[in-house]
């Protein structure tokens, strides 16, 4: 079973890392979310795996899972949530300030293929033009 969990941690981490290294904010947020899942499971697993022994004191129980990593993971989950929330809002702020959702503020990076323009992107462009015009005024 440990191998399975280790594999899960590994895959979550690898996927998370890959997405975190993407150029657009939203995938990065997803990547960090996966990474957080990965590290939470890791941290949890550091108390070793136990089946059927929750750390709730019970006179009948013979042993318990390690409660400490669980408490740590709980804290870590909350913190990761706070951070993710902040980041996603920051991503919106960045889109507003930079005009795009590239992490470096580029409209189109060198190695990206421009998206086909659709109704929304066209409307967005129009909107940006309007704002520019207004700023000039």
């Amino acid at each position: 079973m440990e191998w399975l969990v280790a594999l899960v941690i590994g895959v979550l981490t690898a996927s998370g890392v890959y997405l975190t290294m993407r150029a657009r904010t939203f995938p990065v947020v997803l990547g960090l979310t996966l990474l957080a899942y990965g590290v939470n499971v890791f941290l949890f697993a550091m108390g070793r795996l136990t089946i059927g022994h929750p750390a709730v004191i019970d006179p009948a129980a013979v042993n318990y899972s390690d409660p400490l990593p669980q408490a740590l993971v709980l804290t870590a989950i909350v913190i990761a949530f706070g951070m993710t929330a902040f980041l996603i809002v920051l991503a919106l702020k960045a889109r507003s300030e930079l005009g795009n959702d590239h992490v470096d503020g580029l409209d189109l990076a060198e190695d990206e293929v421009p998206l086909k323009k659709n109704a929304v992107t066209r409307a967005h462009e129009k909107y940006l033009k309007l704002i520019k015009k207004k700023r000039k005024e």
Partner: protein
Amino acid sequence: MLELVLPIAFTLLAVSILLCFLRLLKGPDLPDRLLALDTLYINAIALVVLFGIHLESSLFFEAALLIAVMGFVGTLALSKYLLRGDIME
């Protein structure tokens, strides 16, 4: 008897979640994937309750309850997203 049936039940559920996952992969449209996710949530309830029976422990009941209470919120939000884009207005 129960001891005999439980492994079978678990196996059925295992197949069930794999089928949901296959639908999740195939799509083809977003509502399909959404439905797969929703079904996974419900499968999870079954799994958790069954697991509780298996372990003779009621400590997992709240997990099942919460999945029932909150699991649908994700589906709700995603559907609303498709409908309105803006889920909170």
